[in-house]
């Protein structure tokens, strides 16, 4: 460990002399770190990379869709692009996104622990993720895959002539990184909570991640084995799904969605956890209905496993199974509704400030609501028959995943940026981009609801002319959105060097993570904190424990 001094504000009282960033320098100190905060930053870098790769594919797709003829890309090219867009965005950006970056960084601090239970496993999970990413990038560079991110058989097992096995391996491998992260979180939350931190004093962020981890543990292995079976079928002619042997291609869909529906909750639950933190801090109020929000996370995770067949209403599935899956899909929407209403109620009689993270939180609630409500259109059997596999579905999930989760992710990054980097980001730029993202987003994806109900199928490289105007709007929106995503990248990097020093608790927030220096020391806390109150203790008259830390 070198003793070089940080290129930092000498003499600034709020800047800790030694912290997790300056304790050691050099590539080695990062690649061999066992510190959950550094691993979170490794994830942050790699996840961001994949987001922009996925985004670049999206841009090319949108450009192609400006005109009804397929003139910019070949049909094969387009098919590869949406597949690789979906694969990178889902498996390499959104699923690890909030949990492996923010969850990794914050969970030990939020529960007053020095690290996760298995730090080496944590680092291993990042390496596994990178390995999986390399396989996928290899497949991309080698020419890509064209099966859609859903890999339906028999197309993927027999007919596709692109790099299916390579990509499948990539996803299989990253699956294990997700399993290890989930395992680590579950064990950590069970065994490493600080004295006094009972389950119902945990921040809702932790509850949400616990529920997410449960899904990772229970769902991911099924995806893993399914992918292995497809790869074996492709490579050795093993005939698990082969219709020529009497095999059932719909079986593949069951196994795939048994993971991939719950996986959509992997993508949204952590974001919901972020929102609970943001809303309380910027309305300076304890959360409304703590227990309801906590249990709604758990029940989303549990019920989420019972509805996968709603992706298969018209796939040749039994109509009775379809009905079971439909009614259960409506039931799983209830806990989401609970959260939305409780967040809104939290604002009542709060003291609300419009900081950047809060703007993202508002955006999340609105767009998630729209995305979720259109989910109800899709789970209504007779209506899904018409909108299934049209742009209506594409709009539905982008509203939740981009309008919801990506917004929450950005909100979270801004909120905890002072903790991560020790510096403040430029607030004016922050608010401006939040607005740009919101506008760009709606312009991109709202027209897709309309064009979807009109009947434009998804995964279409060329389309009938009457859909053009709406598609052009969507492309225009995407370019605004693209700008909105590049700007934060620039100013956040800028702020790492030039931003004002944040101090331990710039938001005067109440979570344990704010009770230590920014950036924190490697072991997070000088002494293990003792918890004496409920989470979100914003209204207590005495200066919160956070203020104590500030005088250090």
């Amino acid at each position: 460990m070198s003793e070089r001094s940080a290129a930092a504000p000498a003499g600034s009282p709020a800047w800790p002399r030694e912290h997790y960033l300056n304790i050691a320098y050099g590539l080695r100190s990062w690649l061999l770190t066992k510190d959950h905060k550094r691993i979170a930053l490794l994830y942050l870098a790699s996840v961001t990379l994949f987001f922009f790769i996925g985004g670049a594919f999206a841009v090319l797709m949108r450009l192609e869709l400006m005109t009804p003829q397929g003139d910019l890309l070949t049909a094969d090219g387009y098919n590869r692009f949406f597949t690789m867009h979906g694969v990178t965005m889902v498996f390499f950006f959104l699923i690890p996104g909030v949990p492996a970056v923010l969850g990794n960084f914050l969970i030990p601090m939020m529960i007053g622990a020095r690290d996760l239970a298995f730090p080496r496993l944590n680092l291993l999970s990042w390496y596994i993720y990178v390995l999986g990413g390399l396989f996928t990038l290899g497949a991309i560079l080698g020419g890509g895959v064209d099966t859609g991110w859903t890999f339906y058989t028999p197309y993927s097992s027999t007919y596709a002539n692109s790099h299916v096995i390579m990509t499948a391996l990539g996803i299989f491998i990253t699956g294990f990184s997700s399993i290890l992260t989930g395992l680590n979180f579950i064990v950590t939350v069970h065994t490493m909570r600080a004295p006094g931190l009972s389950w119902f004093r945990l921040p809702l962020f932790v509850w949400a991640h616990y529920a997410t981890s449960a899904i990772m543990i229970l769902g991911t292995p099924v995806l893993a084995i399914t992918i292995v079976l497809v790869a074996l079928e492709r490579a050795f002619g093993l005939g698990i799904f082969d219709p020529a042997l009497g095999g059932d291609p719909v079986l593949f869909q069951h196994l795939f969605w048994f993971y991939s529906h719950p996986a959509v909750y992997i993508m949204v639950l952590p974001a919901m956890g972020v929102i609970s933190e943001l809303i309380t801090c910027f309305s300076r109020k304890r959360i409304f209905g703590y227990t309801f929000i906590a249990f709604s996370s758990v029940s989303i995770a549990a019920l989420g496993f019972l509805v996968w067949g709603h992706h298969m209403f018209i796939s040749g599935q039994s109509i009775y199974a379809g009905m079971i899956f439909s009614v259960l899909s409506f039931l799983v929407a209830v806990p989401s509704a609970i959260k939305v209403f409780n967040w809104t109620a939290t604002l009542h009689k709060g003291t609300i400030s419009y900081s950047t993270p809060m703007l993202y939180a508002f955006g999340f609630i609105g767009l998630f609501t729209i995305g979720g409500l259109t989910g109800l259109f899709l789970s209504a059997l007779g209506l899904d028959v018409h909108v299934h596999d049209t742009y209506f579905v594409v709009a539905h999930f982008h509203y939740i995943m981009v309008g919801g989760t990506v917004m929450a992710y950005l909100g979270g990054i801004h909120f905890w940026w002072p903790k991560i980097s020790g510096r403040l980001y430029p607030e004016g730029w922050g608010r401006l981009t939040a607005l740009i993202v919101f506008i760009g987003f709606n312009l991109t994806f709202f027209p897709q609801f309309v064009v979807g109900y009109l009947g434009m199928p998804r995964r279409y490289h060329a389309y009938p002319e009457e859909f053009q105007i709406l598609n052009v709007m969507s492309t225009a929106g995407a370019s605004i959105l693209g700008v909105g995503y590049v700007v934060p990248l620039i100013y956040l990097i800028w702020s790492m060097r030039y931003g004002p020093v944040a101090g331990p608790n710039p938001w005067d927030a109440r979570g344990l993570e704010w009770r230590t220096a920014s950036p924190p020391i490697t072991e997070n806390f000088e002494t293990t904190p003792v918890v004496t109150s409920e989470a979100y203790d914003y209204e207590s008259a005495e200066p919160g424990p956070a203020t104590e830390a500030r005088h250090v």
Partner: protein
Amino acid sequence: MSAGTPAGAPLFPEAASTLAGRVDDLYLFLVGVSVLMTALISLGIIFFAVRYRKGAAADRSNPRHHSWPMEIVWIVVPLIVFLFTFAWGAVLFYEGFLPPDDALPIYVVGKQWMWKIQHPGGKREINELHIPVGQPIRLTMTSEDVIHDFYVPAFRVKRDVLPGRYTTLWFEATRTGEYHLFCAEYCGTNHSAMRGRVIVMEPAAFQTWLAGGIAGETMAEAGARLFERYNCDTCHRLGGRGPLLARIYNSRVRLQDGRSVIADETYLRQSILEPAARITAGYKPVMPTFQGQLSETQVLQLIDYIKSLGEPEEEPSEP
């Protein structure tokens, strides 16, 4: 029902089947609910955000942090709306699987990347489907390779077309005209080119169209020829080794393992391609498989022939 922009681009799809208007009703209901809820929530947020903004002198005494009555309201009210919507959607869906008895059968084979359609009268077409208006149509569909999906937006109907299996789809067009036919399940390179037209005609015009062109043999005739060519009749005759096939379609067949099934198209298909899978009670598993010897179209022709041998008089009943 079709609104449009000045430029002529539609914003709402044409409705041209008996089902379409009913699907639209459910859609508009849900749009109403969604607009209402989104407005309620976003106006609520905006109202609170302005009223209780930092620095504003609002009454902040006695803030609440939980309330059973409110929780119950916002659990129960959505639940009721949800279950109502479920029931509505389920009814529509169920009826979408119940073709009327007088539905006109048409056969569809999907393959990368075209739709091959054959009318029972023998007329074939590719990527086009001519049908009469006001007449229920029942499609029996299968695929030669990967999964496709037969989608006619104007009718609000769609069904996956699977290899190795039959799926069915029915609709009744209410307006003449030309409508899009899309393949809605990703099926490889030219998925987006696997498009066609559904042409809805007046019944008289449809009859003329059917009769026009080269008068080929009907599907059943073609099937009868295949039946001879593949020597099916060596076994399937009186006193032969296999059961008589007259009036077998839609009858209840007893199987060796004690179960019984309705001899629908799927069953007949399986009997020809994988005879051993379900052995008819009282017979030996001697029938050879014709897998790989018959194309999907030929199988459909054989089935149409078997269907032409009649159906049982009364409803198939539980044994």
